[in-house]
């Protein structure tokens, strides 16, 4: 059957599935699911660009999402007047200067071969400068961090619009992606995967521990919305149930605009000359390079572009949940889940990616209540035969998700290596 028919049929099946789940879980829950799915869809589209179009194995998605979330919080959370009234900004300014000075020092050391310092001497010099820069930076930052945490808790936010927060988050992530891309994109594919996992863990450590910047494990909440909150609607007389429903629908309306625009732009780009070149590079790396295309630069482009979408989605996730909790970021939830969505949905196919997001996310969420039911029944049985009830059913059922995700990955790799809706390769005339 043709690709279009296949797409339409699979989507019809998907909507039936969503409808049935909606009947079971109720309209409030399903709207929450859908709202989260839109954010995940943006993130997955970003990964699809990196992996599906570019063949890049980015396993550091979690790190990007954390950074985007932190940036969104910084932009949209109300201003912390304690901080701005104290010496905090001054100390931070000094730390920033120290950072820049250190960066300059290291950069200079790396250029030292132009002054005639070569080989082992240059390496020693660079390492020494890294060390000095690090000590310098720490000497300014540690007292600043301690001061801020003691006096005002953390630097707070800027009190601006959450949508601006999403955009800023995307920009920050793009910068970080550029840096990471610059240094890692030359690596062999599985090394790249491991390196990105490592970098993402490093980022996580930083965001988690920089209490002065992100409040760390103390978490930040409530993060404001751009559309009316349930509380706002309740104040206007809407019933509690409906308030959640309408509020989430409002959020969905806003984010859907982003998703549609992004989807449209990405699909247009894919179909055009840029997309063709990307595919050429992905499919025949060596040949493309020998044709004079600057492969590394293109890969960097793809990497950064994909990360922009991830940044948007990551910011939306935090705004939606209204909490920024660094410890809630796990590679499982945030990196591997997205990967499964893309692989199962269809690598290189945007419609497939969105399908994958909805399907996998719902399976992910629904595994928990199903497991609870299973455990409750099992617990009854064990009680009856004298073994006693099963403890901690709640936290255990949550783990079912992880198991299910693992099973899904395995099955997908074995039987659907190209996903439900594989890439549509059009024969150019």
């Amino acid at each position, binding site marked *: 059957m043709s690709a279009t028919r296949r797409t339409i049929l699979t989507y019809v099946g998907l909507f039936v599935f969503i409808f049935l789940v909606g009947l079971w879980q109720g309209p409030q829950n399903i709207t929450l699911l859908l709202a989260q799915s839109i954010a995940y869809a943006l993130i997955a589209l970003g990964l699809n660009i990196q992996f599906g179009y570019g063949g890049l194995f980015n396993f550091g998605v979690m790190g990007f999402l954390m950074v985007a979330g932190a940036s969104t919080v910084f932009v949209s959370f109300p201003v912390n007047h304690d901080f701005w009234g104290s010496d905090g900004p001054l100390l931070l300014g000094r730390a920033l200067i120290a950072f820049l000075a250190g960066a300059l020092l290291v950069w200079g050391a790396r250029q030292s071969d132009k002054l005639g310092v070569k080989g082992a001497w240059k390496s020693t010099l660079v390492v020494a400068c890294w060390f000095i820069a690090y000590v310098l930076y720490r000497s300014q930052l540690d007292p600043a961090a301690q001061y801020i945490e003691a006096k005002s808790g953390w630097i707070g936010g800027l009190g601006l619009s959450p949508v601006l927060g999403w955009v800023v988050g995307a920009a920050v992530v793009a910068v970080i992606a550029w840096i990471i891309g610059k240094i890692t994109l030359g690596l062999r594919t599985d090394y790249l995967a491991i390196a990105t996992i490592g970098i993402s863990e490093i980022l996580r450590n930083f965001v988690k*521990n920089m209490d002065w910047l992100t409040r760390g494990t103390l978490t930040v909440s409530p993060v404001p919305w751009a559309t009316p909150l349930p509380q706002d609607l309740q104040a206007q007389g809407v019933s509690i149930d409906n308030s959640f429903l309408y509020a989430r629908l409002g959020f969905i309306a806003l984010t859907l605009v982003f998703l549609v625009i992004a989807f449209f732009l990405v699909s247009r780009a894919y179909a055009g000359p840029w997309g063709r070149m990307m595919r050429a590079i992905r499919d025949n790396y060596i040949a493309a390079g020998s044709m004079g295309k600057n492969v590394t630069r293109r890969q960097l482009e793809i990497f950064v572009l994909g990360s922009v979408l991830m940044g948007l989605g990551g910011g939306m996730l935090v705004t939606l949940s209204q909490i920024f909790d660094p410890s809630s970021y796990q590679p499982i939830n945030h990196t591997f889940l997205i990967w499964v969505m893309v692989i199962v949905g269809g690598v290189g196919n945007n419609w497939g990616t969105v399908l994958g997001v909805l399907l996998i996310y719902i399976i992910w969420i629904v595994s928990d209540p199903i497991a609870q039911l299973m455990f409750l029944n099992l617990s009854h049985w064990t009680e009856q035969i004298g073994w006693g009830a099963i403890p901690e059913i709640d*936290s255990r059922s949550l783990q079912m998700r992880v198991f299910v995700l693992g099973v899904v990955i395995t099955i997908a790799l074995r039987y659907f290596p190209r996903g439900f809706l594989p890439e549509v390769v059009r024969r150019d005339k």
Partner: protein
Amino acid sequence: MDQFIFFLNKVMVPGLVTGSVYALGAIGVTLIFGILRFAHFAHGDMMTMGSYFAWVMATALAAMGIVLPIPLGFVVLPVSMALTAVVALGLDWAFYAPLRRRGAKPVTLLIASIGVTLMIQGLVRLIFGSSTRDFFVGNEEKVIYRIDLSALGGTRPLVISQPQIMMWIVTAIVVLALHYFLTRSRLGKGMRAMADNPDLAQVSGINTQLVVVVTWIIAGALACLAGTMLALDVNLRPDLAFNIILPIFAAAIVGGLGNTYGAIAGGMLIGFAEALAVFNWTAVLRPFETYLPNGWTFPNTLSLVPPEYKLTVAFVILVITLLNRPTGIFKGAST
């Protein structure tokens, strides 16, 4: 003298402990990489699984009233190691071998191993819950030796626990045994040959199937050993191993993937690097304060990296190695 004892307690002992655990895990990873040519991400969870096997067996023994001078966790090791080895073989048969037969790329196998990781993690938590447990079952307690060094002028004791001593002994024995196996036995040499040049190994008539089986057996057994010892030293938790998989990869990569001795060295290196990085140098440098210019003192804590960032050390080493010398400090398998 006290400073030296402090250094021993805070750097040498933890470094050797962590280093041994990393080394044993890294050996498994590097063997699998050298012979099966993929990064086995599920290794950390194999360690967790192995430690839970040991715990269940030890608990069973304790319930039967058995009490021994050494922790039951150690006593059941041979059995739990064998069990983990069998499971490892099962994992390969079920998940990796089919993909290998279809000529899957190393990255595909990495993703498959991520799937296996998630399944094992989910199962372990489903069955055992997410709580942290003390490995000592029944009425056992951790035996801690406080070695009085007052004869040498120290006022603080050197603190070493019984599980730690056993760990070092067992690690040393295992490493020696592995060395003999790899250099003296026909099968061990066959493994090295296959890691060196898999095509030639097949052409030479080396039984590649057998080598693959032995690889998984060794990797599984060592993973159980490392996981159990770690749990005995710290505690038993489901995410015991997820935190460890990246430092172990770092150790294997630094040592040169496919190079067993490199993996041991890499493991020790990273173990000590972590201990050194969070070490509070001030305590050691205090006696030298008198040599500083008037009025200068050392800050209260002078460590290279704040303790919360301890795990970051391994990741940083990993990333730096991947970027500068992906083949590792020692010569690894030619990729």
